[in-house]
Structure formats: C-alpha cells, structure tokens
C-alpha cells in the first residue's frame, strides 16, 4: 500500500469509529451533535496518561475511552431530561463547551496543541476500527439493540412493556461517548498531536451526516456511510476544487430520493438467514378484517 492509500484508510477507520459513536444513541432516537467533545476527552485523557504518567498505550487508550464514557454518563443524566430538538441542541452546546475548555487548559498545551509521545501505527488503527465494528454487530444481536429500537420507535409503549426508557437512553448515550473517546484516544496516538480546534462542531455534524446517509435502520449503515464519505471525495479528487461542491449536490439529491439512508432493513433481507418455516407475521389485510 502506498503512503497515500494508507493515509486514506486510516482516516476511514477513524470516521467509522466516530460514526458508530453517533449511531448508538441515534438507534435510541437521540441525536448527539456533540460527539467531537467526547472524542476530545478521549484524545486528551489518553495523551495525558501516556505523556505525564508514562502509561503504555494499550492501557491508556481503554482508560481514556472509559473516562469519556463516564463523562457521558454523568452529563447524560441531566442532558437527557431534554428530548427531540432540545436534546440535539444541548449536545451541540456540550460539544462546544468541552472543546473550548480544552482550548483553555494550559496543562495540556492550550491553543498551541499537545504533542503525544507514543505512536500507534496504521495497523493498530485498522484493528481497532475492525474491533469496534465487530462489537457493534455483536451488540446488534442482543436484546439491548431491540430495546433501543423500541425506545426509538415508541417510548410510551416501550415504557408500558417494562423497558426502562431513561436507562436505555443513558446507556446508549454513555456507550456512544465511550466509543467516541476510544477513537479520540487512538487519534491522539496515531497523529502524535492533539489540538482542541480539530474537535469542532463541524466534525460532530459531519459524523452525523455519515450515519444518516448510511441509514440508521441497520448496524451496517454507519460503516457504509463513513466509507462513502471518506472514499468518494478522494475519487473525485481529479475534479479538484469542484469536488466538495459536486459531492454536496450528490448528497442533497440522494437524500431527496432516498431519505431512509443507503442501507435499509429491506435491502438486507435477501442476505438474511431465514428462520426454518417461521411464517412471517402479517398485518391483517382489509379484506380479512372486514
């Protein structure tokens, strides 16, 4: 692989991790527009542990992810009192505040940025991204994912059926924050430099864009969306300055034609293993009920 190809794939790996961090709360119906803030927490926490305490990378990164998850848990409890558009705005504000705090924190370099001593090679990043995807696919097989869908589709009914709506929302939010922190900590160790300005609102918003573009109905949507948003602008590189404009036009038209995203449940149906002889439950037809 040439250096260029490796570079693109590394960016892809980071985008995939970020996309799943957005996907988890979104699967429970919560739009997190502040994911960059949690990536910043992971990045700075991981960098701080390796730099100041001499921790090995493999210990610092999970601890940094846990720290981001913990912050997500603590902040998520008051923030998740809001819902809908208010929640999106609260997370948006949260992301802005977190990166502004790091920008002013002199102990991690402030606005000048924070160099990191330990280095994670590209294959470590690939393996980590692969691990995140596998973890998400495993989670998608559990009842937890089913509860999240229930909470998203109808919180009232989910509550009546005994699902702890608040608990599921907080869990999804904190777990998403931990995934973001994991990606952020790896980012710090791969590029060996952290600056608060990188973790801005556009990073959060574009990550949401990947996920919605890929589709939130299945666990594969974020992967496809992130891959598309990373690779297609690179392919359009030939058209140089027009590439982002062309790309934006494409996104607008695509969403207008297919608002449910690229990968949907219906699209995956042919690939699914069929349960033996299980009759698909059907809604009563008008004739039957008449």
């Amino acid at each position: 692989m040439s250096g260029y190809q490796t570079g693109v794939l590394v960016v892809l790996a980071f985008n995939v991790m970020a996309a799943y961090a957005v996907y988890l709360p979104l699967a429970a119906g919560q739009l997190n527009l502040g994911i960059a803030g949690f990536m910043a927490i992971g990045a700075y926490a991981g960098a701080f542990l390796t730099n100041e305490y001499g921790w090995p990378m493999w210990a610092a990164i999970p601890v940094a992810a846990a720290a981001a998850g913990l912050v997500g848990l603590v902040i998520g409890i008051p923030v998740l009192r809001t819902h809908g558009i208010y929640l999106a705005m609260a997370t948006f504000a949260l992301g802005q505040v977190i990166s502004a705090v790091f920008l002013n924190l002199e102990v991690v370099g402030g606005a000048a940025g924070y160099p990191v001593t330990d280095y994670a090679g590209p294959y470590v990043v690939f393996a980590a991204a692969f691990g995140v995807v596998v973890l998400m696919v495993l989670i998608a097989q559990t009842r937890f994912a089913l509860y999240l869908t229930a909470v998203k589709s109808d919180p009232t009914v989910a509550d009546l059926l005994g699902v702890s709506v608040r608990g599921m929302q907080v869990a999804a939010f904190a777990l998403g924050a931990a995934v973001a922190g994991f990606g952020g900590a790896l980012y710090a160790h791969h590029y060996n430099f952290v600056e608060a300005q990188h973790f801005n609102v556009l990073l959060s918003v574009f990550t949401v864009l990947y996920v919605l573009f890929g589709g939130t109905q299945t666990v594969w949507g974020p992967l496809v969306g992130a891959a598309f948003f990373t690779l297609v602008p690179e392919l359009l590189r030939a058209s140089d300055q027009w590439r982002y404009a062309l790309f934006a036009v494409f996104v607008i038209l695509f969403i207008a034609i297919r608002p449910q995203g690229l990968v949907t449940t219906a699209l995956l149906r042919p690939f699914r293993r069929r349960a033996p002889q299980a009759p698909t439950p059907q809604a009563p037809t008008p004739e039957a009920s008449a």
Partner: protein
Amino acid sequence: MLAQQIINGLMLGAIYMLVAVAFTLAIGVLNFLNFSIPGLFMLGGMLAFGLMKAGWPWLLAFAAALFAAGLVSLLVERLAYRRMQGGDPEVPLVSSLGFLVLLENLMLIRFGSDMQAFPALMADMNFRVGGLVVGMAQLVSLALSLLLVLWLSWYLSATNAGRRVRTVAESPETARLMGIDIARLVPQLFVASALLAALGGILFAVNYQQVSPFMGEGVGFKGVAAMIVGGMGSIWGAVLGGLLIGLAEVLSISFIGADVVNITVYGLLLLILIVRPQGLMGRPAGREKL
C-alpha cells in the same frame, strides 16, 4: 469602557438576532432545524461583495443578493424539506447541511478562501457621545434589525396572513382542515427566513467590513444558541437571546479573553437547556409557537 463594550455587544447581538429569528421561523412553524441558514447568511454577504466588486451600485447589489438567497431557499424547501415529510426528523437537517457545504464551496471556487475586505459604505461616520464611539453603519443596522423584527411580530399577531402562519405552527392538521393552503404558505416562510438571514449577512459585511466563504458558520451557530436561549419559536425570545449572546460574547472577549468565548456562550446555552429547556421566553414544549 464597559458602556462601550455593551454598545458593541448590542450591535453584534442585532446580527445574531436576525439569524435567530430566521431559525425560529423554520423551527417554530415547520419544526425544521434549517442548517442552510448559515449558508444563506454567507451568501448575502459574499454576493453583495462580489456584485459591488463587479461595479454594481450597492443598493442593487444588496437587492440581488437578497433575491438570490430567496431563490436558493425555495430550492432548499423543495429538495430538503418537502420530500422529507413523515420520515425521521433528523433527515432534513442532513440535506440542509448539504446546502451549507454546497454554498460555501461555490463561493470558495469563485472568490477563494481568504477573508476579503468589504468596501466601507459610510466611511468614518461615527457618533461620539461622551467618549463613546458609535459607528453610523452599526447604528443603522441595529435600528433596521429592530424595526424589521417589530414589523414581523406585528405582522404575525395582527394580520390574516400572520394568523394563518400561527395556525400552521399550532397544528398543520387543523390548518389544513380550516382551508389554509400549506403548500403555498411553507415556501413563503422559507423565503422570509432566507431574507432575514441574508440581510443579517449583508449587515455583518457592512459593519465589520470583511467577508469570507465561511463567515456563516460561527454566526449561524451563535444564532441557533440565541434562538434556544430566548425560547424556540418565540420571536421576542430570539430578540432577547440574540442581544444576550452578543453581549456575553463581547464582554467575555474584553474582560476574560478571546479563547473563552465558546465556554461562556455555549455554557449559557447548556445551562438554560438543563434548567429551563423551553428558553427564557418560551412556554413549555409543544405549547408556544410564535
């Protein structure tokens, strides 16, 4: 010193106010967080700049910029809003964001990414009142913004067209039953919101005498903050929020430092969302619209 900063804060707040009212029209009536508004803001400033550079008289250039913003907003309505009805509420947000990226990149291709100097319309016309300096341009734009918002508020509360808008905000279903032509009303709202945003961009360019393809992002996000602080869907809330955010920004720059702006502005936003999610002037969610 303090009085001077308060004046500067109010001037900046007037711009945020216009953007916040533009957002609040889209949210309050259509429940649509329209991320193309920062793009329309930028389009107003950049097109006015480009046309004046091409030798147009300023009045004509401003009118053309406003007209273009209105046209683009109709396109946003058609492609990002109309087709998304009944789907996930996050999806229109994505394609309106596509418009922001598209507009920014089109301007980038045409004018380059650098900050450009906007010609001074009212050169060196400053009032000096007891040691305070008030720019003529700033004063005119503050007055213009306030008048416009006053007029809009009167229009919505006292005219038949305004009553129609408020009915749609309250319940689109009822509005349809009462014979209101929603398919005609919605594009009109999009144009109104675009005109406010683009006017904000023009006034920003005149006041601060600089434009760039990315001038909409910072101002646009602060406009969102202003809208929420004041109370989503409330015009007077947007006025109050805009002025508050402007004051908070200018005062924290001059007394604490430029780097803490995001902490104070978005910290204020986060605090309000947690303590009083409906904003300062809004009624509880689902009740108050305009």
